[in-house]
């Protein structure tokens, strides 16, 4: 079969690879209908997470049909059209019992790497390097999904492939940030980043009852999507002081919940941006945390800052004093998708949650390298590139 693979730093190639097979009794095999680029893939492709092996199949946001199932699978049937969260969770460990699925004890077969880095190993993630389990990703015609009864969710007939596709990661990640960030009815929520995850965090906050939601970015086409499709306020950080802007828009308080959906390659302006770029390139820090810093500064006293963007290691100039003295709650997580997908699919079915506008570009998988280039460069208004594996 054809698959899009990591072929080296800043190299994506489409190659012939063997078809996957059932390896465990709880596995299913999917025929992939749609699979999509994610901003976090760019950290892998750019070599910022140095645990990729040439030939590794990329992709962790996808939708497909079950074509084969292991003998222990009971819930999912052959022929089901399913969406699957990016993180692999067993459903039986204590973390899964607490619905913290991306922290699953059993989902990462290579736990030694991340235990060494972080002290504990989170669960595994499809197509996301040998640090996160070494699973083959979804940019392929077929794909293996372990623990299928826990991870596969049947898509209602009335929900299109392209809408449901984003329940795999963008919406579930955004929902994780809005929910675990503690969004309450009446809250003011600010979201840094108007990519797919940031937009979906904003929409999730609104569906959870937030009264005012503000999204911060610099790309006019993404800010336009925020206004048109999400129904939130949009702020261009290149034309205004974000902290002052948020203070003015919130009666001097600052947002109750601040969600950072940018990640380790944050773009920022001025001296701070240059400082972080240089330190990252010199490997004096692994990640650029400018959006997190700003969120901590902007957040109201006693508020909540949620780190949704992907970080791998160390940051510099972290405002610990503001965190402590303002009494903030800072929390982060990869997505606990298995907890939220049923609710998300209900909102998708009712029309309260739409995602089709995120798929600005659709291409055959054979053009994956070009698809990633456009996505990385944000060319032609690209928010996400969706690949059709049959093409």
């Amino acid at each position, binding site marked *: 079969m054809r698959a899009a693979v990591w072929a080296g730093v800043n190299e994506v190639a489409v190659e012939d690879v063997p078809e996957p097979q059932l390896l465990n009794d709880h596995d299913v095999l999917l025929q992939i209908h749609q699979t999509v680029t994610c901003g976090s893939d760019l950290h892998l492709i750019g070599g910022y997470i140095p645990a990729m092996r040439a030939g590794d*199949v990329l992709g962790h946001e996808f939708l497909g049909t079950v074509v084969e199932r292991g003998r222990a699978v009971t819930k999912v049937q052959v022929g089901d059209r399913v969406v699957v969260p990016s993180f692999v969770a067993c459903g039986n460990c204590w973390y899964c019992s607490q619905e913290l699925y991306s922290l699953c004890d059993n989902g990462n077969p290579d736990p030694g790497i991340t235990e060494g*880095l972080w002290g504990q190993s989170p669960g595994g993630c499809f197509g996301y390097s040998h640090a996160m389990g070494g699973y083959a990703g979804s940019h392929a015609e077929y794909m293996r999904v372990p623990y299928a009864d826990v991870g596969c969710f049947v898509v209602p007939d009335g929900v299109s492939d392209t809408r449901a596709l984003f329940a795999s990661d963008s919406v579930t990640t955004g929902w994780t940030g809005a929910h675990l960030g503690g969004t309450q009815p009446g809250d003011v929520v600010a979201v840094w980043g108007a990519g797919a995850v940031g937009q979906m965090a904003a929409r999730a906050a609104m569906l959870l009852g937030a009264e005012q939601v503000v999204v911060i970015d610099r790309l006019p086409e993404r800010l336009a999507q925020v206004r048109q499709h999400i129904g939130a306020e949009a702020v261009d950080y290149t034309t205004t002081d974000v902290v002052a802007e948020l203070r003015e828009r919130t009666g001097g308080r600052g947002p109750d919940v601040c969600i950072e959906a940018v990640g380790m390659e944050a773009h920022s302006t001025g001296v701070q941006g240059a400082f972080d770029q240089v330190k990252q390139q010199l490997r004096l820090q692994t990640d650029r945390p400018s959006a997190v810093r700003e969120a901590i500064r902007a957040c109201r006293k006693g508020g909540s800052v949620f780190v949704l963007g992907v970080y791998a290691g160390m940051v510099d100039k972290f405002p610990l004093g503001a965190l402590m003295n303002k009494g903030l709650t800072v929390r982060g997580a990869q997505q606990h998708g298995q907890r939220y997908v049923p609710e998300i699919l209900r909102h998708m079915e009712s029309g309260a949650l739409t995602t089709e506008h995120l798929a600005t570009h659709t291409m055959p998988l054979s053009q994956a390298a070009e698809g990633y280039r456009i996505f990385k460069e944000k060319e032609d208004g690209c928010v996400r590139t969706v690949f059709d594996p049959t093409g």
Partner: protein
Amino acid sequence: MSSAVSGPLRQVLGKAAQLGGAALGTLQHTRIPGVGQASTTEPADVAARRWRAVTVFRDDLAGPFPELEALGPDLEVRMQPAPGGRGTELYGRFHGSPTEDQVGELRAALRRTKQLAEVGEVLRVDPQPHGRRTPTPQGAALEGAAAQAPKEGVL
């Protein structure tokens, strides 16, 4: 690693794979000044005498544990209830001074035992689809680290 590679390059790649696995092991026992991300600051011989433990999310956990028994009579095993309804803590420790390899086997066996008790099977990841593996020392080192990963970590 590609089987098409032969001769001196194969030796280099083999060495790189060994170094990758060894580097992962070293990382677990190395304190990097100013970074503070190492999993332990203890000398390996002190760490080797500690109990290694997993918490299995089952109140009714009971032996036999074939994965642990396979490690031989020098392995001491004990269990106790975990607090807060978190299941059962399962501990293993070798008598005497085990080698790093023995401790690695113990980590891997505890993880397999936990999976068998919680899920009923041990998760596999190979073989699976992949494209062309360009034979490079960095790639071989990563493969060595990944191969060693089930035996490493802070456990």
